[in-house]
Each structure stands twice: as C-alpha cells, then as structure tokens.
C-alpha cells in the first residue's frame, strides 16, 4: 500500500497530528500567555483538514485496507466526505466557542483541544467504516474522548456527576452494542456491511433468524443511546447540563451527527433495502417509526416543562433526534431523497445548536455563575447584550423551524421525503412536535426581550473573546445561508447518498 492510497484519510491524520501537537504545546509552554494560542492551533488544524476535504470532495470513492474477499474496511466516498465536513465544521466552531470559557474554568487547554480533535478523528472513522469492527473502534475513540471532555470541569460537582453518568451509561450501551456485534458475527460470520447485506437480502426474517435480528436490534440500541432517542435518552439532560457549555454544544451536534450518519450508512448499505420487507413479528420501519414518534413526543413534552434554558435545549435536542428518525424511516422505505434531507437537517442542526449553546456560554461568562441558566435570570438580556441576543433569537427561530432559516428547510426536506414515502401520520406527529417546540423556543425570546428587568443587571464580568464572536458569526451565517440558499447543500447531499450505491 503506497502513501498515495492513504490520502483520502489525510484529514483524519491532520486532526490526530494537530491533537498531538497541542498536547506537546501544552507541555512545552508554561506561560499561560502562550497557551492562549492552543485554540488557534486547533482551529488551524481543522481549517487545514477542511481544506483537504474540500479539494478531495470530487475524488472518486476510495476503498482502503482491503481484507479477505477484497472488501475494504474503510470507504471514503462522497458520503463520508460530506460527513467529514459536517463534523469538522462542528469541531471548528466548538473550538472557537471554547477559549474564553475554558480559560475561565481553568482547564488545561492543550488536553481540551487535543481530546476534541481526537474525538472528531474517531467520528471520521465511524462515518467511513465499512465494517462494524472498524466502526466500533472509531465509536470508542470518539466516546472516550467525549467522556473526558465532559469531565473537564473537575472542581464542579455537577460536571463530574454528569461525566460519571455519561460514562457509566455509555459503557452500558457499549456492552449492548458489542453483544449485538457478537450476535451478528455469530450468524453472518463477518462484520462487513457487504456480508451483512448479503445475509439480509436472502429473505431472512425475524422468525427464521431471530439471533441476527436481535443482534441488529442491540446495535440499533447502541445508536439510539448515542443520539439520545427515547427511551435511551435519560443520560442526555444530566450530561448536557453538567458539561462545560461549549462541550455540551459539541456533544449535542457532533456525536449525534456521527451516529446518525453512520446509522444511515448501515441502513442503506448494510440492510440493503431489506428493512421494509420484514415479515413476522414487526418490520424494522415500524420500529424506527415507534422510536421517532416516542422520541419526538417525549423530547418536546419534557422540554416544555424545563426551567433552565440549557436543560430545555438538551431535551429539545432529543426531539430533534426524533425528527431525524422520521427521515431514517423514509430511508428504510427506500426513499433515497430522505437521506439527503437528513444530511441537510444535520448541517442546519449543527449550526443552530452550536450557536445556541455558544450564546449561552457567552452569557454565562458575561453574567457570571450558572444561576444565569434559568429562564428568569435572562430577563432583559436583550438590551444588555443586543448582539448576542439577536443571534440567540436567530438560532432559536431556526431551531423552531421557522423560515428563512436552515432549520426550516431541514424540516421541510425531511418531512417532504417522509410524505413521499407515505408516512403521513409520522409527519403529522413531527409537525405537532414542531408546534410544541415553537412554544418553548419562543419562551427564550420572551425571556430575553419581553420581561421587565428586575434591577440594573450585574456589570459584565469579563470581556467577550474575539474567537467566540467569530464562532457565533460562522454559525449564524450558516443558519442564514442554509435558509436562503439550500440548493447547493441538498445537491451535495444527493450526490453523497448516490455514492452509497
């Protein structure tokens, strides 16, 4: 294997190398003055890797690390590259949102950004893996790094608790996932998606081969855990609330994107359209349908009752997983356009969620204390921090799915694909959930702008960092551009889905 053949993996390589550089930088620079360049180094790494992907975007599909039977364990196709871009943009924006926050909380910056880059590298392995063993290694790389990121605010009890919960539940879910892998391996004799597809396309049914299907079910449970779908979502609010806010944003978008994108590959390639053709107990699509309906309803209902904005966003991100599951249901029915819709949705979701958490991070810093996370504590913020509040309004409007933002088109593409696949009821539930969503999202705007200021608010405690402003700006531009010019991205998404074959 020559070095040229490894070029498609170069972006992941760049991330790992920069992660190592950051660790070394942390060691060899003792003055905190120098450490502030950690963020810049990390951003540089992401920017280089993104540039590389951008140049490789039109390259043909690359199959790497051929195993027995000439099957690749890693397939870097257009689909994987689009996912690379999504993930790295998420990582880059998260890096930009972090510096002030991380400095304030006394984190060791080198490790912080290093872990972030390692986790993105793991995600990139996940989304391009063509066999489940490789996938699992990527999954664990991502997970371990994110566990550590969650735990970074060591002196904060809630952060530690959140990390512990996330870690324990994560290990628990991993055990189920592995058990599922074992069952699949036991029945198929391979973990490669191509072999899985062959096994599935022989007209296997639950009744004839329960073990294979139970294995796949357990794998699905592993995914459901990572994307916080009901009823495997329970860790999410605690972990999201306790983690440092920029990490929360990163967790909510990047981890979810990686999981959804690789699930998409699993469904399209691994199930080979066999999802709807199940007879016996219940079909896969019905299962996905049930997951999405319950996730939407539960996520929205719980988000409605929250008093803290951060927790509300956590539950609402559960609801957003439900909307993506609507798209997955349509994909399982063979509606390919839903795949492109999901990619678009994830892109919009990445921008708006990171933006919303970024604004929260900014306000926490400016207003001081975690007390500020309650709705009531934000009264009159709109007038004290006009720019940040205006951005928050934009992100929240997008999260609620109102035009002219990316969130609107995300929902539109996913829902219309589901309609084409004939899931009218599912779409109705989705719309109902969105309506509930509008209520609690608008509460943010009400709290920011329409409540009387109780007393002259505290004076800003720290100056905002330029990086944070820049990160928020990127997120805002993405939200608006996706809402005004959705065409190119959805085209890219279609090409990506087509590359799955």
């Amino acid at each position: 294997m020559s070095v040229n053949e490894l070029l498609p993996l170069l972006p992941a390589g760049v991330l790992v190398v920069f992660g190592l550089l950051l660790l070394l930088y942390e060691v060899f620079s003792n003055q905190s003055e120098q450490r502030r360049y950690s963020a810049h180094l990390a951003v540089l790494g992401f920017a280089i890797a993104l540039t590389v992907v951008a140049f490789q975007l039109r390259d043909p599909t690359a199959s790497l690390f051929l195993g027995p039977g000439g099957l690749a364990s890693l397939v870097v196709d257009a689909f994987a590259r689009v996912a690379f871009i999504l993930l790295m943009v998420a990582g880059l924006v998260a890096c930009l949102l972090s510096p002030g926050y991380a400095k304030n909380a006394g984190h060791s910056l080198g490790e912080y950004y290093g872990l972030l880059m390692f986790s993105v590298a793991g995600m990139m392995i996940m989304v391009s893996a063509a066999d489940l063993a490789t996938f699992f290694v990527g999954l664990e790389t991502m997970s371990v790094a994110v566990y550590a990121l969650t735990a970074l605010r060591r002196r904060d009890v809630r952060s530690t608790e959140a990390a512990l919960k996330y870690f324990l539940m994560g290990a628990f879910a991993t055990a189920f996932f592995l058990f599922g892998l074992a069952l699949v391996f036991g029945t198929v004799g391979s973990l490669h998606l191509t072999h899985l597809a062959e096994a599935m396309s022989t007209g296997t049914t639950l009744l004839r081969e329960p073990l294979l299907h139970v294995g796949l079910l357990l794998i699905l449970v592993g995914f459901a855990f990572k994307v916080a779908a009901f009823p495997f979502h329970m860790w999410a609010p605690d972990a999201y609330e306790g983690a440092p806010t920029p990490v929360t944003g990163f967790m909510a978008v990047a981890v979810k994107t990686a999981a959804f994108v690789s699930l998409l590959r699993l469904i399209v390639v691994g199930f080979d359209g066999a999802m709807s053709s199940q007879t016996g107990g219940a079909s896969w699509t019905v299962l996905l349908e049930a997951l999405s309906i319950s996730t939407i309803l539960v996520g929205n209902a719980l988000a409605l009752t929250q008093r803290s904005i951060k927790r509300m966003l956590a539950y609402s991100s559960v609801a957003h997983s439900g909307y993506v599951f609507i798209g997955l249901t349509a994909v399982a029915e063979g509606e390919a356009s839903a795949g492109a819709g999901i990619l678009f949705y994830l892109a919009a979701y990445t921008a708006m969620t990171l933006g919303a958490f970024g604004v929260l991070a900014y306000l926490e810093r400016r207003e001081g204390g975690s007390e500020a996370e309650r709705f009531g504590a934000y009264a009159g913020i709109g007038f004290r921090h006009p720019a940040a509040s205006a951005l928050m309004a934009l992100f929240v409007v997008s999260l609620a799915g109102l035009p002219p933002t990316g969130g609107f088109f995300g929902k539109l593409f996913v829902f219309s694909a589901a309609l084409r696949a004939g899931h009218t009821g599912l779409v109705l539930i989705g719309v109902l959930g969105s309506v509930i969503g509008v209520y609690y999202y608008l509460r943010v705007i009400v709290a920011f702008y329409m409540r009387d200021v109780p007393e002259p608010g505290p004076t800003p405690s720290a100056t905002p960092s330029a990086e944070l402003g820049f990160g928020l700006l990127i997120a805002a531009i993405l939200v608006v551009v996706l809402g005004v010019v959705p065409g190119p991205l959805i085209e890219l998404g279609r090409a990506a889905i087509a590359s799955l074959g």
Partner: protein
Amino acid sequence: MRPESYSLLYLIPLLPLIGAATLTLVGARLPKALVVLVALGGSLGAFAASIASTWVFYRLQETPLEAVLWEWIAVGRYTFDFTLGFDALTSALILVVTGVGFLIHVYSVGYMKEDPGFFRYFAYLNFFIFAMSILALGRSLPVMFIGWEGVGLASYLLIGFWYSDPEKALAGKKAFIVNRIGDFGFLIGIFTLVGLFGTGDFQLLKEAAAGLRDLDEVLKIGIFAGYTPRAVITFACLSLFVGACGKSAQIPLYVWLPDAMAGPTPVSALIHAATMVTAGVYMVVRLNFFFSPSVAPIAMHVIAWVGGLTAIFAASIGLAQNDIKKVLAYSTVSQLGYMFLAAGLGAYSAAVFHLVTHAFFKACLFLGSGAVIHALHGEQDMRRMGGLRRPLPVVFWTFLISTLALAGVAPLAGFFSKDAILARAFDVSRPLWMLGFLGAGLTALYMGRLLGLTFFGSARYNAAHGADVGHGADAAHGHGTAKEIHLHKPDLWMRTPLILLGALAAVAGLLNLPHVFHLEGVAGGHALETQWFDHYLSSVVGAPQVLLDAGIEWLLMGVSVVWAVFWLFAGYAIYRRGPSATLERATRSGPARWAHVVLREKWFVDEVYEYVIVIPVRTMASFFALFIDPFVIDGLFVKGSALGVRSSGRGLSWLQTGNIQSYATVFVVAVAAIILWAV
C-alpha cells in the same frame, strides 16, 4: 426565444447587498467618508452592471438573458429555481431603479449629512436597491415575491427611520399593515397560478398561457377541477391586483402612501415615488399574458376602472393639502392610477413609459421639495413658504421643468407618456378617457398651486416659523425659534441629482414619440424615429398598435396641452400671493366650504376606515380579548392542551430521577421490551 445564460446578472443585486451588509455590520465604526464610498459604490456598481447587462442584451439581438443562481426549493413535483432574468421590460425598470437610485444616494449624502443615523440610512437604502433589483430581475413569482417583501421591509424601515417620533413609527406601522392585506392577495394569486400551471417561472407560464387551447373548457383534473381556466386565471389576476393595489397605493389601499411621507424626503423620492410603488404596475405588465383583455377581460376592466378612479380621486385630494410632501404623495397615487389605467386597457408599453418618465420628474419634484424643506430647516407647510424662486434658483428651475412635465405640457416627458395613455383610453372607453382628462386638469391645478405657494409671492417663512403647526416635519432638522431664519442652501451633492433628473424629465419623451410625429424630412431628411420605446418593449408586450387617426390624435394633443396650461396658470394665479383671503372667505360658507372640507379631510376615507374597519375589528378584538380568549382559547385550548402536554412532561420526569441505577433499569427494560416486541 431561448434565453441566453449571462451569469453576471447576479452582480446587480449583489453589489448593493454587499454595501448593505457592510454598513449594517461595521457601519457604526466607519468614518463618514467611507460610509459614503461603500453606499455609493454599491448603488453605482448596480447601475453599471445594469448598463452592462442592457448592452449585452442589445448586442445579442435582444435575446433575453438569464442566470440560474441555485436550485432553491424542491417540494414534491414543484421545483423553484432562484433564477434571474433580463429582458426589455426588466432593462427599462432596472435602469430606472439603479440609475435614479444612484442619483438619490448622491442627493442623500448632502441631505442626511447631519443625521446621527447616517450609516443606518445608507444601509437601508442599499438594501432597498438590492430588494428592488431582485423584484425586477426575478424570473419567477416566488423570487419576485422575495423582492416584493424585501422592498416592503426597506420601505417600512425607512418610513419609521426616525422611530423615536411615535407619529412616524405609526406611519411605518400603517404602511406595514395595509401592505399585509395586499401581500395576502398577492400570495393567493401566486398560489393559484402555481397550482394551475405547476410553475411560477414567467417563461414557462408564458408558454403555458400560449398553450392553453380552450379557455372556457371546464377542467377535469387537478385542484381546480370544475372551473374553467379563464375563471381561475381571472381569480388569480384579481388576487394579484389586490397585491398591486397595496404596493402601488390604489383605491382602496392607497391610504398608507401619504402617511409614508414621514420618512426622509429622498426616501419618498426613491421608494414612494419613483420605484417601489411602481412594482404593482411592473407585475401586471410582466404577467401581460394573463392580464390581457382576451384572457381575463373582467380583471382588466376592474384594473382600468380602479386606475382611472384613483387618478382623479387622489388628484382631487391633492388640491386641498398644505403639506408640500402630501401634495406630491397624492400626485403619485394619482399618476400610478394613470399607469394602471393604461395597463388595464392593454396599453402596456404606455404604462411602462409613464412609469419611466414619472420616475424622473416625480423624483426630481420630491428632491426639490426636499431641498426646500432642508432650506427651511424642516418646514413642510406651504403656507409658510413662498418667494423661494430667488434664493433657490437651481431648485426652482428643475422644479418648474418637472412640474410642467407632470402637468403634461409639451414637449416635456410627461406630455408624451400621459398623452399615450389618454389616446388609448379615448379609443377604447370614453368614460375612462373623461376620468383621465379631468384628472389631468386637476393635476395641473394642484401643481400650479404648489408652485405658486412655494416659489412665488413673498417669503412667509420668516414670520411664521416656529409656530405651532408644522406636523410631520423632517425632525432631524428641528425647528428653530428665531424670527429670521438662515436659508440652508443645497450643496453640490444635492444640486447635481436635481439638475440631472430635471434634464431627464425634459427630454425623456423623445424615447417614445407618438406615431403622428413620423414626419418626413424633419431630422435632416429622415423621418423622426417614433414609438422607439414601444418597439423596444414589443418582445415582451407585443407589437404597438396604431389606433387613432392622425387628425384626432393631433386634436387630442392640442386640447390637452391647452387644458393643462390653463389649469396650471389658474393655480399659479390664485395662489402666487400666498393663501388668499378671498379664497378663504369663499370657502367659509355654502357648498364651497363643504367641498373644501371634504377635500382637505381627504374625503374622510381614513375616518371611514376607522369606523367601518378599525373600530369594529377593535371591538371584536376586545370582545375576544375579554371573553373568548381568556376562557375558550386560553382556558380550553391553550392552557388545556398545555396542561396536557405539561402534565405528561411531568409524568415523564419522575423517571428522570438523576439516579443512574434507574436510568440503567429503564434502559434494560426498554431493550427487553423491544426485543420481545420484535420477536
């Protein structure tokens, strides 16, 4: 004709958009000179790009241009591309928009010099040029609608530019609400056409319209099964016309435009006279394959009559207004009525030609009035002007030229454009011609009055200045209290656009000489080129027709010139000495008093609306607010459903104990349940 791809079209909206974005983001920190540079650069760039596009269009033997920017929305079987198009009609409008827009940018530099919101003003103004060019270039109804809403937004922001004055903020709100009614109609129209033809693209719509074999055959399939295509198209046309009425200030939705004068005067010139308000006319002409006497005759009658009535009705109100900008505003409403009259009669190129000439002379009039207001430190009441002819010569002469043009005095621009409309009306419908003819007389009369009160007679501004009146004055310039005021003369920034627009108002008529001017041997042995503009537009609206015979045409022209000059002079003669005491006395009693009151109070339309619409709606609203809303809606629906959702949320939260063991338990139970269910 297949459109040629010409991707540089996107520069026309892009350059002002960049200007607007730059000014919004960093304008507050830029020095004034840089703000001017960015703002003028954006609008001049758009103008240059428009000229370049027109040139390319011309070089390609008038093949339409197009630029598909991106695929915009694809929902179900409908695909909407974000496509810009450029044909003869577009070129006419876009050159006016960007050209006049640029001149008004220049003028504003002088006019807004001292305003603290300088950069904000130019950000809005650049944004307006952007939105208006999207409106003009959009090749499909949805894209046009974006521009349509964009210009509405810009207009709203600029009317309420001095938002700290509640009256001005209210004017902005009124414009906003009235336009919502129009937009509702516009949207219904769009939906109807898209529903019928499955596309919003003008090119495809035109082909579809041409392909309709039998307009009166009842449709069997589709959403409109059971109706004839003619009925559906008529419905769509009427709905679209409701939108046009809102945007172009026609009866019954004109009421916002006079109030819109609360904005800075250059804005009134650009948005509320020259460009935005003509969007309705443009839209009707753009869709002339539906708005055509042979396809939707009923809709066309409605349009022509609404236009004709608006023309005379608004002119009559203009007679009795004392605020210089209000007179011009009503005049704009009236002139827009002429354009709709023309469009409703199928004289599309006459409508567009009047649109163009009107843009020149009305912009010039507004800018002139702005210069007067500027000079008098915010005074807008003509009763306190007078005698400005000498101190403001440039303003006076350009104003005079434009007034003559507006009144329809040969050979200025307005004469030719108005005459083309009246000639068509004379041919098709005598009652409509009568309306137009009377309206022309009223126009001349109120313009004579305006001219007399403002520029002639003795200077009245010194004595009266600082008194209690002065409503809706340009607040930025404030009211002085000194008896002797120092006239604030227009600087070069302001004078240049005035002169250029005045010149255009004088000569633009040459673009479209009536066919009777086709005289041999006048211009160096060749015939005069006549109806050039009609021919230019013919690729969009069809070939020009010659209907009247030359003798009648000459006669009509002669009559209307005499008619205009007579009333112009009458207005001037009565008012050149200021508000005359004789007239005051004459209007103090009897029917004359009533007539005066009715006109001064604008036929009480605002009051009628207040009693017929606003108060009943408000009463109903308070009824709902007091009874229905708290008990039925809030109590039953909102709180009830919220309670349902909330309590289910609470019910679910008992599971969310924060205890990791219980999470794991739920996890395992769920896995077991799923497997059991699946097996």
